[in-house]
């Protein structure tokens, strides 16, 4: 549906996977060389193609090449159920004039196909009377946020399978009520190369991995589900460090067992305390999408025209930062070749910035912020979040809980969704408790929380000093395109939010 956007925990019960690509030394791939060797497409050839087909006829243009390998391993009932490997490759050519975008892509990367794609893209954006001025891409230095000595994709299969088996054993050992365990590991690598009309060519090699455990617990005919996971642009060994995998298994089992005795969630407006980390999904839904450039240029965001206005309590400062090393939402350059940055969206409660891609920054006469992202070569870029979080405050988390007489304490969430135009957003708690007289008491069943974006953050009355980023699980969907993102939050108190339980 247009006009809404979603974020969810990427724990897809994975299906399929397989062995490492025999490709050269992947740790030090040069994207230029990769596409030249494999497809005979070089940066100078891409620039020539743009020059002869697009320059002088459109306002901006680019050619994006992508090669993606994804491996998925799934263990169920302590045996490998799915092992799969997926390869996708292609090129997208974009031509922009004023507000018009022409886009064509092909999954057969060759000069002939690129020229055909350029002709198709140009057809719609062509203006014979163009001034010939081309947008200047935001040059700058690409970051170096995730060069890995051993990318997750190349790690030996037997090491991965051994870890999945250990996860299964650990989750079962956690409690006799655990009846099913699904452990999955996905590993991906994307090699991209982009050439823009201003003669700027840049590439990136992006590793990404994700480990997840889902547990079903049963007791007296009742069943519940618990899930935990994490990852990022990190090597496989990340999961072995700091006892991460043990923690993932223990948390998934604990959550499922806890929910077996959860009582009905309350219904109605009440004080809500959000725990640190993944509950930052609140920011993603309540304000994040509403501050993306496209919705504001079109005047269809609940935040349109509100730069400089107070939209949150003065305790609230929110940033979007694509430059954090090894994070799931980070990028050295965005999918338009602009280096990512740190954009302050809300400073002490005042709206200070939007997230921009090249098209919308040009039309709004603002700077591109490195937020132009796309799901793959098959999609034109648009403004998207990277890692979005609230800065830490002063309060002791325990004091925040003690300050609440009656309310809900939510620490884990499934997913959320927002209607960007009306500002109404929801996010669904998967682990929550009642707060009674300042104490965390009974666990309650999952419930959806609903609020109004421009209003929700004005109700933030306490902000903890315990900022945490999520474990690396988020996938954001907008207009049919999914991209990996991060969120983060310290413990916060919100005075008055509607909790969608069943206990009236």
């Amino acid at each position: 549906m247009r006009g809404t956007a979603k974020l969810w925990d990427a724990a897809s019960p994975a299906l399929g996977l397989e062995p490492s690509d025999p490709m050269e030394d992947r740790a030090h791939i040069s994207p230029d060389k990769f596409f030249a060797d494999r497809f005979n497409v070089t940066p100078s050839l891409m620039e020539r193609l743009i020059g002869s087909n697009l320059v002088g006829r459109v306002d901006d243009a680019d050619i994006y090449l992508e090669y993606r390998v994804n491996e998925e391993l799934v263990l169920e009932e302590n045996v490998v159920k799915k092992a799969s490997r997926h390869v996708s490759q292609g090129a997208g050519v974009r031509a922009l004039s004023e507000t018009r975008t022409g886009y064509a892509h092909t999954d057969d990367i060759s000069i002939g196909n690129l020229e055909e794609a350029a002709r198709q893209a140009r057809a719609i954006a062509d203006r014979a009377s163009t001034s010939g001025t081309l947008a200047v891409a935001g040059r700058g230095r690409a970051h170096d946020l995730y060069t890995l000595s051993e990318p997750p994709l190349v790690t030996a299969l037997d090491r991965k399978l051994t870890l999945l088996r250990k996860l299964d054993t650990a989750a079962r050992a956690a409690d006799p009520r655990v009846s099913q365990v699904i452990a999955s590991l996905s590993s991906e690598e994307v090699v991209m190369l982009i050439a823009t009309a201003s003669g700027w060519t840049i590439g990136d090699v992006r590793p990404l991995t994700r480990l997840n455990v889902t547990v079903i617990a049963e007791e007296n005919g009742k069943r519940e589900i618990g899930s935990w996971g994490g990852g990022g642009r990190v090597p496989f060994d990340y999961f072995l460090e700091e006892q991460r995998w043990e923690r993932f298994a223990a948390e998934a089992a604990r959550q499922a067992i806890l929910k077996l005795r959860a009582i009905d969630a309350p219904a109605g407006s009440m004080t809500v305390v959000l725990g640190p980390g993944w509950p930052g999904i609140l920011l993603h839904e309540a304000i994040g999408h509403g501050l993306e450039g496209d919705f504001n240029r079109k005047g269809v965001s609940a935040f349109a025209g509100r730069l400089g206005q107070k939209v949150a309590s003065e305790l609230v400062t929110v940033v979007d930062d694509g430059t954090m090393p090894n994070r799931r939402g980070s990028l050295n350059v965005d999918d338009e070749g602009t280096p990512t940055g740190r954009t302050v969206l809300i400073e002490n409660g005042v709206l200070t910035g939007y997230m921009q891609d090249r098209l919308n920054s040009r039309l709004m006469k603002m700077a591109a912020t490195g937020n132009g992202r796309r799901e793959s070569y098959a999609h034109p870029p648009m403004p998207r979040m990277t890692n979005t979080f609230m800065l830490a405050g002063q309060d002791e988390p325990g004091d925040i809980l003690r300050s609440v007489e009656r309310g809900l304490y939510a620490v884990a969430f499934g997913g959320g969704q927002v209607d960007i135009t009306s500002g109404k957003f929801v996010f669904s708690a998967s682990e929550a408790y009642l707060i009674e007289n300042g104490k965390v008491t009974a666990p309650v069943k999952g419930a959806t929380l609903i609020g109004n974006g421009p209003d929700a953050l004005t109700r933030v009355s306490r902000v903890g000093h315990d900022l945490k980023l999520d474990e690396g699980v988020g996938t954001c969907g907008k207009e049919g395109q999914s991209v990996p993102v991060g969120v983060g939050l310290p413990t916060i108190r919100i005075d008055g939010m509607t909790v969608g339980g069943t206990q009236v």
Partner: protein
Amino acid sequence: MSAQGDRSGLLVDVLKRAQARGATAADGFLIEEQHFTASVRLGQVDTVKHSRDQRLSLRVFAGRASAAASTSDLSRESLERVVDEATALARVTAEDPHAGLPDPGELIGAVPDLQLEDTTGNEPAPEAKIELARQAEAAALGSDRRIANSEGAEYWDRRARYAYATSQGFARGYATSAFGLSVSPVASENGEMQRDYWYTAARHRAQLEAPDSIGRTAARRALRRLGARKVKTIEVPVIFDPDTAATLVRAVAGAVSGPSLYRRASFLLDRLGKRIAAPAVTIVDDGLMPRALGSRPFDGEGLATRRTVVVGEGVLESYLLDSYSARKLGLRSTHHASRDGSGVGVSTTNLMLQPGPASPEELIRSVTNGFYVTELIGFGINGVTGDFSKGAAGLWIENGQLTYPVAEVTVAGNLLEMLNAIEGIANDLVLRDRTVSPTVLIGRMVVAGD
């Protein structure tokens, strides 16, 4: 495009290679697609997209162990690599007594012509397609002065060719087309903005509803949301309009699909043959309806599509199974295998809650104080327990009449209780999507607001 084309030959070659590399059996699915999408905003072209995609998905067996691989690169070198990798991978996965291809005797014989492809020819020029989007948006913008902005209108079309083959020599294919048009107008008044949406989609171009009617409906839906307010938290009867009621039907399908069941992750576990809903509830999955969006002649394992009564007069009559989940559960496949890059799963075809006798107006008139839901947002369904809690928008019902718009509330309950509390099903079923429902009245649910 021909129904089978030249590509099933390529598929057969790939499967032969897999056997030569040591696979004991293999099957493959090849999808080739062409898309066109054009969006218009405020009368101006916004984005035009052309694309051509292909993907070959392969499943190989080494005895009872299996692995999957897929690629969009159909060059010989790439296909050879994919086969080798998948075959090698199958050797590291564990033996699974339930893994394997369907029995060859069960595979489809002749492929029925379900008229899934528009073969009338005369492909309109891109400008004519863009004009449809322009007309739809103009109808929305022109219908009321409060519709002054828009997120745009979109026209899309898609042609696809599917081929399926097994290493036992089976090879069949079919072709489809699909067309769609949607509009997202924004209504505003007194500083409030509300967006809504309407669409049409069909297998044949001539089946598309008129752009004017789509635009006017979208505008009406956005306008009726203006002035929305929260309500006090209350337990009341809730009516789901056809679009939102389809969410409930989808949730039932998810809970009776094979993978949810063998993982014991379903609130409908062990309910086969038992009552799970009010007697008025009959849910049918029919993949053989000519020209319908969800139809397909055979499933992702080459088994002939059929009509399945999932729920008959409130009783759970059938699960939705592929070969693997069926063997695992000691049952037979219901021919609902789906195929995507990552392997074989389960999907529905045309899934419908069957209509009842009342008109939607009669259902509304039967409610003294209640909530008519027109939009559900968020995740909020726990498939293991059936717990349901979603963000909602709609209209409040007072004394049998729709009154003021409502937003920023949730509706919550438990799906099993909700299915049993269905007190009315209207006669307004229209097969405008893959999963559809008439208007549904549920006796009591909790609406949370202030």
